[in-house]
């Protein structure tokens, strides 16, 4: 497509958008900052746990710095006008997550458990893979509008990805949720994380074509715009799919994420509040309906309504067919004992959570060790990523790019809300990972790809428009002179 505009040509008298600064140097400065903070935290954990600066400090710092540097160079070369905040924030979150995982690796309680494996080196490898995928996205995806051609292929691809865990032999049931697939020799993969991105491509392509039909052909009833039956079709189909995920894979989080993303994109595409009302009603009906007969979900709701009871049942070793877990209560205690400023890195007892302390419950570790002040900063960082995504959507010139950016950042926001809300006891807990922070290969790789796509859209949106052809009307003005 268009080549990058040389800044010196801005001085010619062509009509064009104002020369937006590329802001790559701002990004570089922030990236340096974003690498220094986790290195500081890493040294802090070592000092608190073993009274010495950890031996791996240099290699960890260099590894993180190398990842950030490669990412930055790729952006500088292939997406020079991309948003300056997305890459540094993602790097920072990833780095701090690595520190927290490393810290939990060194907890004696967790080391004593049966399922213990050292997670930090693996997570570093997954992060490197994630950055590699990020660079690949920025390099190969020259223009996000290419994705528009694959609207229906994306739909099929997303369905396949979602159904893979149900295939016998390939699917892998872990602690009640069937959301993993096992690839022999490579380990396990969570296809739902990737389906999130592919599905956003499908929704964006589909809604771009159908939005007029969805927005305009409707009757007004009691202040709400009721859509026609045939336009309701797709939302019903998506709803059924997400309910099916919920039933067969018992994965509340993914189901909520997909349906929520669709409703957000539908609202943005049509500007009709009625869709949000319908969406909320339908998800409420679906959740209550499924929860009334699915025991796995019922346990989660029980643990949400009365975590103390679950804790006591678990301690007493009551076995009534359902696995009782003390995780939810331990997470709440972790937040409580952290207080406003936290106990300091390496000095909390969040490892009492036990299983999944470094994945689903990692936010509790932050809550205990860096306190409310730290968690607020983390949540603000997530909010900044989402804000940049929405800003990109506002600036994008094509409707497909707008919808895709909104969908991706909406999905990101929903995921953060669902996980953080679950760990903090606001909503029932769902098995999802905090983007970038938590241990989990699929999650970190997929989220780096998501950031890559957002960067590509923002590069296209912020790139100065090429000078248009001379305006023929200008000539006419010259002729008709008074």
């Amino acid at each position: 497509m268009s080549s990058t505009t040389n800044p010196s040509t801005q001085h010619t008298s062509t009509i064009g958008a104002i020369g937006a600064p590329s802001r790559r140097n701002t990004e570089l400065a922030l990236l340096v900052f974003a690498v220094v903070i986790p290195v500081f935290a890493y040294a802090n954990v070592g000092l608190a746990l073993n009274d010495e600066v950890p031996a791996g400090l240099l290699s960890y710092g260099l590894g993180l710095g190398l990842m950030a540097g490669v990412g930055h160079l790729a952006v500088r070369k292939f997406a020079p006008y991309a948003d300056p905040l997305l890459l540094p924030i993602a790097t920072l979150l990833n780095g701090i997550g690595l520190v927290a995982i490393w810290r939990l690796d060194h907890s004696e309680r967790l080391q004593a458990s049966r399922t213990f494996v050292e997670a930090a080196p693996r997570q570093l490898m997954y992060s490197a893979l994630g950055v590699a995928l990020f660079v690949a996205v920025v390099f190969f995806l020259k223009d996000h509008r290419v994705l528009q051609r694959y609207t229906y292929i994306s739909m099929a691809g997303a369905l396949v990805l979602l159904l893979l865990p149900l295939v016998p032999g390939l699917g892998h049931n872990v602690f009640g949720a069937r959301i993993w697939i096992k690839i022999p020799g490579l380990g396990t993969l969570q296809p739902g994380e990737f389906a999130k991105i592919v599905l956003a491509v499908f929704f964006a392509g589909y809604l771009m074509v159908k939005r007029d039909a969805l927005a305009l052909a409707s009757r007004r009833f009691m202040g709400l715009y009721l859509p026609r039956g045939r336009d309701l079709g797709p939302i019903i189909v998506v709803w059924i799919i997400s309910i099916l995920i919920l039933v067969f894979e018992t994965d509340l989080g993914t189901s909520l994420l997909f349906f929520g993303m669709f409703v957000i994109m539908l609202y943005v595409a049509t500007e009709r509040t009625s869709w949000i009302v319908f969406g909320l009603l339908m998800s409420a009906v679906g959740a209550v309906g499924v929860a009334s007969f699915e025991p796995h979900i019922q346990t989660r709701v029980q643990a949400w309504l009365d975590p103390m009871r679950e804790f006591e049942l678990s301690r007493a070793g009551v076995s009534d067919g359902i696995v009782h877990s003390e995780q939810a209560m331990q997470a709440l205690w972790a937040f409580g004992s952290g207080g406003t400023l936290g106990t300091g890195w390496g000095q909390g007892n969040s490892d009492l959570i036990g299983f999944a302390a470094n994945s689903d419950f990692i936010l509790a570790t932050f809550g205990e060790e860096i306190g409310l002040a730290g968690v607020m900063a983390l949540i603000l960082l997530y909010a900044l990523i989402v804000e940049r995504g929405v800003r990109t959507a506002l600036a994008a010139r094509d409707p497909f790019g707008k919808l895709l950016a909104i969908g991706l950042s909406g999905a990101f926001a929903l995921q953060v809300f669902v996980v953080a809300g679950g760990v903090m006891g606001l909503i029932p807990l769902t098995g999802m990972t905090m983007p970038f922070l938590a241990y989990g290969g699929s999650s970190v790789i997929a989220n780096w790809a998501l950031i890559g796509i957002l960067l590509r859209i923002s590069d296209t949106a912020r790139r100065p428009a090429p000078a248009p052809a001379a305006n023929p009307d200008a000539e006419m003005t010259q002729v008709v002179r008074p």
Partner: protein
Amino acid sequence: MSELTLTVMRLGFLAVLWLFVIVAVQVIRSDLFGTRVTQRGTRRDAGRTQQASRQAPPQQRQQSGGGRRGRNTPTKLVVTEGTLTGTTVALQGQTISLGRAHDSTIVLDDDYASSRHARIYPDRDGQWIVEDLGSTNGTYLDRTRLTTPTPISLGAPIRIGKTVIELRK
């Protein structure tokens, strides 16, 4: 490790984390895609600046007729009337296009403006020129409708539909 060191590190970590957040927010604040919106003045302020600009032109026109490279080179473009009142754009030698088209530098939300209404650009000497791009309702500098590219003096009102624009120092 002593209690004191750990406390200092704990608070230090929170401080740098928040510093990062604040720096990031600062980056966004100044990252409004090239157009900077300054504080919109109150009614009284707006009136005062208009008065000032009304008095200013004769003087400045003389100066611009002579050595135009003086201290009176404008540095910003200010919208003084219309829906965009208060918007300023820094003049850095680039062409500023005005109109309802999305890719204009200043996108006018004005029923009386054409999609590519006018442009403002510096000539070789650095003098700013306004040119009407064949708009339907015309571009006015002071009270005269523009027919040819015309040099703009400091503070002279350029009227496009309901929008008025001035160059300021």
